[in-house]
């Protein structure tokens, strides 16, 4: 037994196993799985992006020009599901897989086989979900929020949607348990909790959120399933149930979920800004406490998605106050990043550009969030394009921009080559300009009265919709450049040093570039 273990151990020293399937299908290596997660996220980013292009093309001018309203609803629903569960979450999990072990000085994740299974459930879940596009009645079209009774009108897609959500939830939970186990058990000697990089902290907290709320979503969709097929009436008023109860349960999951999509971004930006400002992160411990506060508050603000359902006054006031409080720790983070830049010595490589854009544009999304928190005015904003603009500012220029920043930042460590800086800057400027052309006018559309999730609109909304669509097309096309830059960097380029960036701090930058297949088999000592 001991001998066998020892042999296996020795084999691994030579690098990845030969053979494509043996390498990628059976891999338990955190770097391989990190790469798989990120490639999957990139693929889904384009699948969801193609759906967004259909949406913006249909909305380019008034009238139903390209698609049927039912198909349009499928696109808005699937765009959200694909981007959230297929794009952003796997991309962040991939970054966690690749980076957490090398940032805390661990040889791998704590549960490597669970890691493999958690990843391979994702393609399975998405085969179920995307297959619905080709089924009678089409894909889910009742919104990603799956509100009954509307969701119960789905055709054959309904059970596939439910089981896809279950599988994606199991995948996320397993990935998160693995992250928690790794961070709590496998830190190198001397790596106390308050010495961990903020990306690790952000993911520790995010992983707890996922473990806490994914089962709630699973419960909610299972109740939908039994309502549809087994005669229960959880959400059916005629049987003594309540359709609004689904919304309460869904948003008890859904609000922490949106912080699941942004907390890792905070960690990424907190790594990049100090590097290029050549100055330590301002207020490390307040960053940790702010992240934890945001995570705590995320559990008690779900009602702000439901100000129009007819909650009691006391409920509305409670959710309004709690939501407004979120602005305090979030503000602390923004100010800390600004203070980090203050009196630094900054250079503006692509990761830094994306991070600065993140700080500014996420601020716009955060400030419109304060407006949305106000219950009496949310009765106007709710379910309009103002909300669409708000959450795309936090999710695209927030979460997605942070992922892009992270890719440029760590790509030299992964590939051993520097990416093409000139093309990276082109990617940044085209993305940043077009994304604002895309989403800024949507604030105006919403305030002027355009509801969300409509395939056609009244004439006074024509101008801003056309501008928004043009921004959307440019933003979409620009992302092809991103893929080209990544491929180019994988294939070759200027050799990267171990440190890569002049101001880089942290264990991963002590490793050679590219990092060997196995790292920190002997734990480093952190002083």
């Amino acid at each position, binding site marked *: 037994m001991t001998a066998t273990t020892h042999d296996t151990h020795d084999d691994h020293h030579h690098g990845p196993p030969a053979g494509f399937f043996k390498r990628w299908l059976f891999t338990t290596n955190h770097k391989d799985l990190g790469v798989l997660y990120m490639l999957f996220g990139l693929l889904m980013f384009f699948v969801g992006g193609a759906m967004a292009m259909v949406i913006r093309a249909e909305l380019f001018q008034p009238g139903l020009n390209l698609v049927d309203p039912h198909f349009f609803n499928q696109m808005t629903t699937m765009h959200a599901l694909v981007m959230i569960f297929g794009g952003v979450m796997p991309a962040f999990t991939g970054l966690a897989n690749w980076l957490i072990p090398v940032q805390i000085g661990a040889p791998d994740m704590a549960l490597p086989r669970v890691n493999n299974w958690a990843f391979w459930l994702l393609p399975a879940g998405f085969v179920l979900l995307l297959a619905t596009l080709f089924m009678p009645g089409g894909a889910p079209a009742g919104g990603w929020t799956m509100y009954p009774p509307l969701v119960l009108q789905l055709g054959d897609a309904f059970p596939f949607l439910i089981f896809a959500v279950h599988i994606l939830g199991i995948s996320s939970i397993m990935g998160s348990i693995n992250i928690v186990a790794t961070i709590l058990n496998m830190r190198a000697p001397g790596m106390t909790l308050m010495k961990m990089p903020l990306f690790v902290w952000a993911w520790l907290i995010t992983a707890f959120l996922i473990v806490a709320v994914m089962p709630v979503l699973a419960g909610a969709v299972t109740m939908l399933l039994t309502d549809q097929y087994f005669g229960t009436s959880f959400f059916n008023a005629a049987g003594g149930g309540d359709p609004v109860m689904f919304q309460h349960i869904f948003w008890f999951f859904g609000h922490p979920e949106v912080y699941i999509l942004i907390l890792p971004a905070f960690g990424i930006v907190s790594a990049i800004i100090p590097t290029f400002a050549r100055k330590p992160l301002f207020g490390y411990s307040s960053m940790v406490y702010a992240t934890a506060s945001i995570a705590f508050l995320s559990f008690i603000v779900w009602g702000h998605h439901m100000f129009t359902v007819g909650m009691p006054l006391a409920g509305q006031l409670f959710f309004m106050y709690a939501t407004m409080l979120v602005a305090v720790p979030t503000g602390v983070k923004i100010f800390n990043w600004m203070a980090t830049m203050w009196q630094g010595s900054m250079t503006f490589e692509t990761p830094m550009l994306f991070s600065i854009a993140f700080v500014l544009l996420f601020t716009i999304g955060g400030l419109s969030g*304060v407006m949305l928190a106000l219950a009496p005015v949310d009765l106007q904003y709710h379910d309009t394009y103002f909300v669409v603009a708000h959450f795309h500012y936090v999710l695209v220029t927030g979460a997605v921009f942070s992922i892009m920043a992270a890719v440029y930042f760590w790509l030299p460590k992964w590939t051993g080559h520097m990416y093409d800086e000139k093309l990276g800057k082109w990617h940044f400027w085209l993305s940043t300009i077009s994304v604002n052309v895309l989403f800024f006018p949507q604030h105006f559309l919403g305030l002027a009265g355009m509801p969300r999730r409509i395939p056609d609109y009244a004439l006074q909304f024509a101008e801003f919709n056309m501008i928004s669509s043009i921004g959307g097309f440019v933003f979409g096309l620009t992302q092809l450049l991103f893929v080209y830059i990544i491929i180019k960097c994988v294939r070759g380029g200027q050799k990267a040093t171990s440190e890569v960036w002049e101001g880089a701090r942290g264990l991963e930058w002590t490793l050679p570039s590219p990092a060997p297949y196995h790292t920190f088999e002997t734990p480093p000592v952190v002083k």
Partner: protein
Amino acid sequence: MNHNKLTTVFVASTALLALLFSAGAAAETDWRRPWGVNLPEGVTSLSQVAYSMHMLTFWIVTVIGIGVFAGVFYSVWRFRKSQGAKPATWHHSTAVEIVWTAVPFLILLGIAIPATQAMIKMEDTGNYDMTIKVTGYQWMWEYEYLDEDIQFFSRLDRDSDRARQRNSDIRPRDVEHYLLNVDNPLVVPVNTKIRFLLTANDVIHSWWVPELGWKKDTIPGFINEAWADIQEPGTYRGQCAELCGRDHGFMPIVVVAKTQEDYEAWVAEQTEDSNGDVAVDEDDLSDMDMDDLMAVGEDVYGNQCMACHQAGGEGMGDMFPALVGSDKVLGDRDAYKSVLIDGISGTTMQSFANLSNQELAGVLTYVRNAWGNDEDGGDEFQPADVEAAR
């Protein structure tokens, strides 16, 4: 970039922002014109409360936003390595951190107080003068005046409906109030506290007229309350705001506010002709000729059926079956009538018993004869046939 270039970019972007905000201010009075960028001030006391809360918060967050942008841009301009900036080494300051935790908290407190007052006012549905019950359907609204004998349905107007079909030869731009016009608007008096009771028949909808200042979900099996006191006569348009299926984008709301005298005249008119929806005599069971039946039927089909069953009766997927060559349409006459009068339970096919005998006779005849259906034995239905089947 050198300093000058950066300064130019900064000045230009500030100017652009200022321009957008001033455009917002200019658009306040006439929000429906193109390029509208702001909430309407509206015509009810609640909409004005919402509007002033909105503007207060907007200016506060704008000032904070400009502060953040200015801080970041200044750092980017001032602390650049290429300009020889040397990095400082400090990394925390308890005093500063306390300040930027406490100050935002106090600002939020300042916003929360008026917001609480506004919310209390919004929920105060007592002391109302009249009550209107709003029921959402896929995809139209039903209005019932609980103090009068008035009830009717309100749907997208025919012009918009024709123009919005795919491959329609009518351009949306040629239709007045495209997608924001209905066949029967909700008529209400001004300066009256109207209580709305909102519910739905099938899925959740949301009743929203921006100039009334709020939206409220209509939920099957539950009744929500809201209120409005419209201060100026006029026509106010809105839409369903909660995704409710295929034609969610096509169930507008039109509220016509009239002076008390005009409103009373309207009520008198409605109660004479008890069905506000259709100008036909309910009791008239005399036969109609085939041309009249087909003409009435085509109109009813366009208003009621086309959204799901499509312009050519080709249907859409399993949920909205084709009517061309359909067994249900071309089979037993009584079963066919029952589909319209009773609906088909467990599907989205609702009952259309609310339509008049003439309208039902028309649409039954039309569907049985249109699109080549007459080849398989088209025949006609008369109002008396419908009455007999009720």
